[in-house]
């Protein structure tokens, strides 16, 4: 039987929707297991996709095409290549983990929560599989609504501010992207005697772009619009300011999905659409984007150093880590792009786990202030050990998966521009600094008064919580030792993307800019170190956030 005759992709996209509808009709008491069941079912289906995928065959597989709005040549077209398959599996895996992790923390409006989460999953999977630009946009926007509700209804104290900020930022970017999608389609239509057929079809558009069909003006305008949409989602500096708020206020599972999957939507958009469709514009803007990525890497790390709140720290570390992804994409070298994709997957696994771990401690203490916690290793040794594992993974310890992606990005960047690589390498030290400094403060030392005051409520990590973390930990080890497993899968995508760009020469970045960036990084480190030396009592009271309970 021909494998393409089974609408597997549609099944994966819409299984969560079936689940959401059933949860809507079921009673609240079964909402949790029912949602988990459908998330697991989707996960299994996505694993079938992974198993059935043939990495050696070029192009898209499992393609499904249905005419949808023939008037404009808009199709319902899904298809998967190695990159999409990987990201879909990442999505389905983290979805069931997030749903499982929400069982205890979410106690109000459980049905609505589960429905939102399943609809969110539909949107995210759809984005990764859509091969029609219009359909892509629709899934892109569908993602927005459930996340808006998840942050706004089940979030923290400042949730409404955070969720509105999140929606408005994302919407501004994505609506401009809609204009760009339509303008691209129209440019194609105008070049084909007014026929809309294929005007929204990604594969057709890519071929047309490859023949230089799109004018330079259109490329620049459309690329900038796509760039804005994706840069806000990734988020790149200076479009990142929604992220710390959204992360801090979102419920744990919301943060996990936000960091692990939703940030990848932007990076995926760059690789899938922005670069292949507008190669000339992508090259024009690559130096600027590289500089922005470097700033994001440095800035995220420096800001993470001084965050008093655990979740905010992880959020800013995301800005820094995602900077490596955009850096890897826009240096246009094979290693760079491979590293970027690996970094996407690894960041998903590791940061997802870190948010889960922050959630675990928040469940017990209802607090995330780093200054209030110390000596967790004495009270919750298993938790401390698992936390340590993921902290090292995030810091890029060789042997764990976080290292491979960043390393490849650096290698790729070195080939394109050694100075940029040098700057990025310096920041790997910063990453170790903020992570280990945070870990040291909360895990070691005397048990703080705050934690001691919790008494028996501060229990160690529970088996269910370990169950949510174990798959992530396992994958971090496997991909750390055998990154080739992944590289095989998406090698084709990487080559196709690079073929579209064909960079002519190494990317030039004006040397004053590089010097400035190095100065920024060094100044950041010096300032932080100096601050730590001058304020040796920082461990006991950071002075960063007045502690209402500690101020006797």
């Amino acid at each position: 039987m021909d494998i393409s005759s089974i609408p597997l992709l549609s099944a994966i996209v819409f299984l969560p929707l079936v689940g959401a509808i059933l949860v809507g009709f079921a009673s609240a008491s079964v909402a949790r297991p029912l949602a988990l069941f459908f998330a697991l079912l989707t996960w299994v289906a996505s694993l079938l996709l992974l198993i059935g995928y043939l990495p050696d065959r070029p192009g898209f597989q499992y393609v499904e095409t249905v005419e949808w709005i023939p008037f404009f040549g808009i199709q319902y077209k899904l298809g998967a290549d190695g990159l999409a398959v990987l990201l879909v599996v990442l999505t389905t895996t983290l979805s069931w983990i997030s749903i499982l992790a929400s069982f205890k923390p979410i106690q109000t409006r459980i049905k609505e929560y589960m429905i939102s989460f399943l609809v969110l999953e539909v949107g995210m999977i759809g984005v990764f599989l859509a091969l029609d630009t219009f359909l892509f946009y629709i899934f892109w926007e569908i993602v927005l609504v459930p996340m808006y509700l998840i942050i706004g209804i089940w979030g923290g104290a400042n949730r409404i501010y955070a969720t509105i900020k999140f929606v408005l930022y994302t919407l501004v970017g994505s609506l401009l992207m809609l204009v760009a999608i339509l303008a691209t389609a129209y440019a194609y239509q105008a070049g084909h005697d007014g026929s809309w057929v294929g005007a929204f079809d990604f594969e057709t558009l890519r071929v047309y772009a490859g023949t230089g069909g799109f004018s330079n003006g259109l490329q620049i305008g459309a690329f900038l619009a796509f760039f804005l949409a994706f840069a806000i989602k990734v988020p790149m500096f200076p479009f990142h300011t929604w992220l710390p708020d959204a992360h801090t206020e979102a419920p744990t599972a919301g943060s996990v999905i936000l960091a692990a999957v939703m940030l990848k939507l932007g990076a995926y958009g760059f690789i899938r659409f922005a670069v292949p469709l507008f190669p000339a514009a992508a090259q024009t803007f690559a130096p600027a984007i590289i500089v922005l990525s470097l700033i994001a890497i440095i800035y995220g790390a420096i800001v993470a150093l001084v965050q008093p709140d655990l979740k905010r720290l992880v959020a800013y570390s995301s800005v820094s880590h995602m900077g490596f992804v955009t850096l890897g994409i826009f240096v246009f070298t094979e290693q760079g792009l491979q590293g970027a994709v690996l970094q996407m997957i690894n960041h998903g696994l590791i940061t997802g786990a870190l948010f889960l771990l922050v959630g675990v401690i928040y469940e017990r203490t209802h607090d995330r202030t780093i200054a209030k916690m110390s000596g967790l290793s004495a009270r919750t040794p298993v938790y401390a050990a698992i936390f340590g594992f993921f902290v090292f993974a995030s810091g890029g310890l060789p042997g764990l998966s976080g290292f491979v992606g960043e390393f490849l990005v650096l290698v790729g960047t070195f080939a394109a521009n050694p100075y940029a690589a040098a700057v990025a390498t310096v920041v790997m030290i910063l990453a170790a600094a903020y992570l280990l400094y945070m870990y040291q403060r909360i895990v070691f030392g005397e048990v703080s008064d705050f934690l001691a005051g919790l008494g028996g409520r501060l229990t160690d990590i529970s088996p269910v919580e370990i169950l949510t973390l174990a798959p992530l930990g396992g994958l971090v080890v496997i991909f750390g030792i055998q990154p080739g497993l992944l590289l095989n899968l998406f090698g084709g995508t990487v080559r196709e993307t690079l073929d579209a760009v064909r960079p002519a020469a190494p990317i030039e970045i004006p040397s004053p800019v590089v010097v400035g960036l190095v100065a920024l990084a060094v100044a950041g480190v010096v300032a932080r170190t100096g601050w730590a030396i001058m304020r040796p009592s920082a461990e006991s009271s950071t002075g960063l956030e007045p502690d209402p309970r500690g101020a006797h």
Partner: protein
Amino acid sequence: MSWQDFVTISPLVAGILTAAAILVVDLIQPARSAIAVATALIGLGITAALTLIVGLNPASAFDGSYTVDALTTFLDILFISIIAMTIVFGPDYLVPRNLPVAEFATILVFAMTGAMLIAASTDLLVLFLGLELMVLPGYLLAGFHKTDGNSTEGAIKYFLLGSFSSAIFLFGLAFVWGLTGTTRVDEVAGALAAVVAGAAPLSPGLAMGLAFMTTGVAFKVAAVPFHYWTPDAYQGSPTPITGYLSVLPKVGAFALILRLFVEALGPLSDWWLPVMIVLAAATMTLGNLVALTQDNVKRMLAYSSIAHTGYMLVGLAAWAGDPSGRIDGIEALLFYGAAYAFMNLGAFAVVAALQKRTGVTSSLATFAGLGRREPMLGILMTLFLLSLTGIPPTAGFFAKANIIIAAVQAGGPLTILAVIVVLNAAAAAFYYLRVVVYMFMRESATETPALRHGALLWSGLAAATALTILLGFFPSALLEAAGRAAQALVPG
């Protein structure tokens, strides 16, 4: 005048007979709202059937002053659905306030015949007649709640500015008639084409006439800066009537614009295009900016309806500004009109449902905790608001996408207009979603019990919901109908 003429205008006659029948039924069975509504719906059903039958054979009647073509059929069916929905939403709000349902339905149906007359008229005088027949019942409706001061105030403002703008419009019409010597749309277009071709001089009088007519029409569609009457008229009126006012007279006025600006003044499009671009940009931007600051949902929806007028004007400008004369802009305008009608009526129906208990205001606080108190209403309202924002997969999204496609195609300054559209859509998200915030993320300050809503309301909401969703998923059928209608207007 022949037998054939009467066949051609039979839908209009059916509409008027329906209005009369409701009155008669109300005389026989006074104050039985169910019977009045049933009569109205049956009559509207017959009218719709006749419209479709007559629409099969495009024809013109009364010496070419009344024309039935694909555009007429499209608009008539839209008008009939709007009125049917409004009538269905009415009783739940009117009965607890002791307002007569039968009169409400009668006036609405009369207004509908006015709109239908506009859609079919190819003579400037008939156009004006239709306009007046459409807006006069509106003044009555705005003041429908006679004992309510706000309602009366709104009605008087609406009436004064409305008749004022009608007068201005008529004045402009007189100039055009005086200088072209005809009121027939095609002949006016011919005379103007001669002017554009340089065969005849452009007199200042004609330019003035054009300016007056633009002003009059801008009043009717509530385009900035001629929008001041809208918020007061909308807020003062009983809520189901506000829903009606924000939809039918607006879409009706766009029908007028299509017949007038596209058909009669089409040759002059290079002249009025800059005006339309500025009007569109100002209308959507100002409408949205003011809507941002409203904390009364009815007033917010009133200002947002101004913004939607702006989006529709973009469609018109896209047609006028398209160098190769593509009709996509008109098509997009028609599609937007239909999508806007259903989602806006739905949103107003939810507001009206909340106000079933007398004394409940339409302030944002009323919506606090609605998601918990009445989840179904909360979910439906969310859907309508998302559609008004333009989030896929809803009717509102596709409507906006169409407008943007048309504008992008036209290129030039229209591309900038498309960008303004999307930036406005993002700003609109803020105030639409604020209602969602209140419904689902805030708790009500006072304990309000859930209300019981009638079957009529639910069926009306079901229809609005179904259309909002279906037009989002399967826009093709309506798109094709809109395409045929646009084709009839501008044979290209």
